[in-house]
């Protein structure tokens, strides 16, 4: 492990330093506890401090309490979690979950995240598992620790364990209560440190059936405690990976091929003369420049003359929908099949069909990806904002031939990533360059690198067919989607640097759980949803927030709206008729009521107002058909002259079971709504036969400040229900609600995103022509 004490950012603490900093770390031992009643707790004095021998390794086995938490003699606690806070508020929420079980306030809990040397592997941070897995495992470890401490105290004090409470690092009789919920501890109490012995450390296993606090007793969970990272973020003090500097570090810029899969034919270094310290790093088709000075590296990357072979492997984004329909299929997948959908549609009173299309989109991180790597002695230290540091440690070790025991990956904040953006690629770039030049290297992608080369949220093509009865009710439904296949080991997103450098790596394709929510959530007799899994996809895919679910919900919920409109039924009523779950009906009614929903069919008979067309729409999602219940309603104004859509108001009713931190959750929901409005109105990755052509914010515009609507969120807290992940689910119904609102305003159905003014204008004009001269 390399140490750089002169580094102003002390994020390089080795295990040794961490253990020394905390002079005493309580270790929960169980050799003894397995024989119940004979519990002992080891006071883990770092062995190097005691004997000068090798540093005591902090355990990271996710089965052990010690891996998740350390209790200090003053009663404060350090939590170690493999999940990372990518701006989503995990730092406060996980603290709250631990604090609840440990009887501590959150400000007495420190948190270490995503450092492979110090934290257990809790899986990558994705799919909204930060709390449902990350937080819950920490909570169970905390509850296990608390129960052990209470049992020890019960023996010492000769008081039944049921009457004891752990509060602020001390244990005593819970005053006026038999439960552990009382915060007042009588004077005859003992500090946790007194329960510790200095006997040899043995490891206590996490009790995954640990006794979690009853929901009626919750005191810390459910409170809107401010996030601890926000003061530093608002005063310029938060340290991002982009801000990390190491001694002897080189700045690097990568020059990606002129075309996807192009070969590097020649490099002319002459233009680098006069740029201080600029050097070229070339490994086969991998090309980069380094310099001590960052601006010199940038100038060098622009000046360098590289000659690339021609490559034209892409279909172009122009007629992508048509291309996708003809792509080779790797696998046919039946998502759901109930009854006989074909016969059901055939026999229905009326048949309807529509095709929806979602384009390829970028994560669009505001800060391009960045990483710092120091490769030496067969190992490496990598600083990254990757959402999967533990995964990176193992996969990079294999790819770059490093000793996994000497590889440490440390998470640092970056710009929001919303899934698999360029972070892992930037880290691979940094490792390859550092390995080649033998110095620590910082790779900062430029804007065109991020927009051009981040793995993309893939396009989705969705055909829908339905048969309805004479009342317009759905009898049968078919969904047929074209989405990229999942190929290779789970989570495999081949990296750019090894591919360019000719280094072997696992091949595969992993767009995330992209087929979910392609089936409607409504009761019907016949239902079939299938996915044609395409063998390839034009641009390398990865998971982009709420993978697939935004597009699938867009298709399903807009088509449902089409059926409701055809039946002449109010869209909320139409949906309610197909729902039986009270949580579903609850969110639907609340979102509608908050926006002042009037019961009437779409389109809006009195849409015209001040030269604009006003409409409202709603959409409902049962996320992944098993998680959050969400309904989103919105009001839009469409300017028929320009085609410009303005989202004026949005309401969202959100039920994710137990709410850990309502303000932090609301922040996520507001962000999900705005980000998805952006994806719906503006975003499409453009590419020609050779390369992505939308490589900056002009070519790939996102929602701007003046476009922000008024957002009202209703959090339906159900503390008695299991907690569900909420970092992305509220993205899902947004595009559909927006499309439905535009239909309500204009009578025109938009079935392909983005709803740019020119496309909206063209659709309005076409509809007007058809109305004037019906075919």
């Amino acid at each position, binding site marked *: 492990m390399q140490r750089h004490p002169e580094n102003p950012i002390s994020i390089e603490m080795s295990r040794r330093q961490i253990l020394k900093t905390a002079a005493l770390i309580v270790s929960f031992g169980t050799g003894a506890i397995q024989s119940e009643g004979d519990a002992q707790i080891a006071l883990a004095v770092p062995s190097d401090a005691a004997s000068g021998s090798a540093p005591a390794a902090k355990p990271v086995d996710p089965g052990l309490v010690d891996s998740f938490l350390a209790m200090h003699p003053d009663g404060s606690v350090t939590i170690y979690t493999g999940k990372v806070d*990518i*701006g*989503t*508020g995990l730092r406060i929420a996980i603290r709250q979950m631990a604090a609840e079980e440990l009887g501590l306030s959150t400000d007495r809990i420190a948190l270490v995240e995503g450092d492979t040397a110090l934290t257990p592997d809790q899986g990558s941070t994705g799919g909204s598992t930060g709390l449902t897995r990350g937080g819950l495992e920490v909570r169970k470890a905390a509850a296990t620790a608390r129960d052990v401490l209470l049992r020890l105290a019960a023996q010492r004090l000769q008081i039944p364990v049921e009457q004891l409470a752990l509060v602020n690092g001390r244990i005593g009789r819970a005053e006026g209560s038999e439960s552990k919920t009382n915060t007042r501890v009588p004077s005859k109490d003992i500090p946790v440190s007194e329960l510790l012995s200095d006997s040899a450390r043995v490891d206590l296993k996490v009790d995954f059936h640990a006794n979690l606090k009853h929901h009626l007793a919750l005191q810390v969970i459910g409170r809107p405690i*401010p*996030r601890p*990272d*926000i*003061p*530093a*973020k*608002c*005063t*310029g*003090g*938060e*340290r*991002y990976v*982009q*801000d990390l*500097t190491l001694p002897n570090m080189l700045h690097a810029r990568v020059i990606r091929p002129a075309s996807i899969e192009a070969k590097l034919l020649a490099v002319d270094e002459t233009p680098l003369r006069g740029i*201080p310290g600029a050097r070229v790093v070339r490994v086969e088709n991998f090309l980069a420049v380094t310099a001590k*000075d*960052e*601006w*010199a590296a940038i100038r060098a990357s622009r000046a360098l003359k590289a000659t690339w072979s021609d490559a034209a492997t892409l279909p172009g984004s122009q007629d992508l929908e048509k291309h996708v329909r003809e792509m080779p299929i790797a696998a046919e997948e039946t998502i759901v099949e109930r009854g006989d959908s074909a016969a059901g549609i055939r026999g229905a009173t009326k048949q309807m069909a529509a095709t929806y299309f979602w384009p390829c989109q970028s994560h*669009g*991180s*505001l*800060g*391009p990806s960045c990483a710092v790597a120091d490769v030496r002695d067969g190992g490496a230290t990598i600083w990254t904002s990757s959402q999967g540091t533990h995964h990176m440690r193992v996969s990079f070790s294999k790819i770059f031939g490093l000793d996994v025991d000497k590889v440490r990956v440390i998470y640092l*904040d*970056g*710009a*929001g990533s*919303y899934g698999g953006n360029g972070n892992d690629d930037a880290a691979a770039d940094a490792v390859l360059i550092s390995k080649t030049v033998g110095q620590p290297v910082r790779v*900062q992608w*430029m*804007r065109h690198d991020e927009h051009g080369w981040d793995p993309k949220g893939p396009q989705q093509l969705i055909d829908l067919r339905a048969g309805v009865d004479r009342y317009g009710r759905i009898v049968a439904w078919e969904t047929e989607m074209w989405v990229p296949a999942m190929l290779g080991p789970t989570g495999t997103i081949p990296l750019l640097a090894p591919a360019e450098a000719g280094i072997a790596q696992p091949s595969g394709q992993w767009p995330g759980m992209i087929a979910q929510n392609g089936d409607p959530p409504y009761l019907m007799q016949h239902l079939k949803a299938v996915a044609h899994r395409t063998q390839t996809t034009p641009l390398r895919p990865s998971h982009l927030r709420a993978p697939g679910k935004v597009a699938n919900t867009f298709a399903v919920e807009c088509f449902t709206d089409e059926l409701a409109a055809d039946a002449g039924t109010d869209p909320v009523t139409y949906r309610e008729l197909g729902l039986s779950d009270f949580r579903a009906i609850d969110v639907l009614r609340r979102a509608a009521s908050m926006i002042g929903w009037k019961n009437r069919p779409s389109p809006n008979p009195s849409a015209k107002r001040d030269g604009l067309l006003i409409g409202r729409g709603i959409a409902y999602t049962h996320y992944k058909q098993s998680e959050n219940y969400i309904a989103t309603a919105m009001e839009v104004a469409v300017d028929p002259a320009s085609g410009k859509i303005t989202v004026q108001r949005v309401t969202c009713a959100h039920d994710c079971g137990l709410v850990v931190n309502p303000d*932090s959750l609301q*922040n996520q929901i*507001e*962000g*999900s*709504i*705005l*980000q998805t409005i*952006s994806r719906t109105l503006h975003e499409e990755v453009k590419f020609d036969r050779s390369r992505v052509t939308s490589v*900056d*914010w*002009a070519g790939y515009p*996102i*929602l*701007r*400040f*003046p476009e*922000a*609507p*008024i*957002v009202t969120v209703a959090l339906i807290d159900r503390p008695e229900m299991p907690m569900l992940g909420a970092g992305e689910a509220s993205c899902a119904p947004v595009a559909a609600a927006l499309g439905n609102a535009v239909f309500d305003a204009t009578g025109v159905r938009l079935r392909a995103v983005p709803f740019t003014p020119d496309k909206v204008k063209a659709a309005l004009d076409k509809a007007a022509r058809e109305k004037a001269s019906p075919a």
Partner: protein
Amino acid sequence: MAAYKFQVNGRAVTVESWDPAQPLLYVLRNTLNLHAAKFGCGLAQCGACTVLVDGEATRSCVTTIKQVAGRAVVTPEGLGTPEKPDPIQAAFIAEQAAQCGYCTSGMIMSVKGLLEKESRPTTDQIKAALAGNLCRCGTYVRILRAVQRVVREG
């Protein structure tokens, strides 16, 4: 190497640069160790690098070191600290107006630039002043509330 004199957060500095075209952003971040201003695009399209130059919100990624010679630069570090935030920073903290926080520094400096000119901006003026600052996490609604809070609390 040429030397450039200017003020940063009220302090006179002299900075050497091998290239008069070097953007102020890199001088702040790498020479002066002031990391609040962020690299987002290098094209003046996103606002993450916004600082004040002579009181004016300015994109430091396209402002050269030569251009700032003799002028006064203010970065978020010059406003306040977590313990003693300035009123704009305090309002952002009170409204929890950040997620990843990568745009936050630039947002705050654009607000500072706005309030230097117009102490009681309307909602539309606030939105217009921040139209060049992108937030990918979608925290615009919270940022708006934060700015309205500053205006309200004067």
